[in-house]
């Protein structure tokens, strides 16, 4: 078995993804079937955000990857030719 930090980080990732999956499933699938005056709706943003937030996150990820590639390519440029 892996030790120490590896186990901690690994199980942390598992816990985080379980939490995210549960919250998102409740938001997208369960909430429409719950009466609109139930208290649980206070813990969730309006429905549109369930599509907007992942979309923005994906865009941000693509931006980060693109920036990284651009920076690395810029740093490795040689005068007159690109290797």
């Amino acid at each position, binding site marked *: 078995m892996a030790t120490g930090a590896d186990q901690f980080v690994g199980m942390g990732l598992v816990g985080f993804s379980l939490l995210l999956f549960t919250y998102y499933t409740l938001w*997208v699938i369960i909430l429409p079937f719950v009466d609109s005056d139930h208290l649980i709706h206070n813990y969730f943003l309006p429905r549109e955000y369930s599509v907007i937030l992942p979309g923005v996150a994906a865009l941000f990820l693509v931006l980060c990857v693109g920036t990284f590639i651009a920076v690395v390519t810029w740093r490795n440029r040689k005068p007159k030719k690109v290797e």
Partner: protein
Amino acid sequence: MTKLLEWLLGVSLIGVAWGLVTFDLLDLRLPPVYREVAWPMPVYLLVAFGCYSLATVGFRVATFNDCEDAAKELQAQIKEAKEDLRKKGLKM
């Protein structure tokens, strides 16, 4: 039929079904609750797949066996290689 064609066919069938429900193209007049659940489905499936991937990676990181001997051997080999290259004139 190639695997690619099979996948494309399956994905387009599901996509058409989703489009029919979300945009009510056949005027089925389903109860609004089902339309509410259907329209975020593509994003939902993507997020669910992302969560599954993250959980799998995390779990495998946590359960991977440490290989003490292999690690030591690898470190020794790296040192040896660096020495060898330095002697041959490579500046590190």
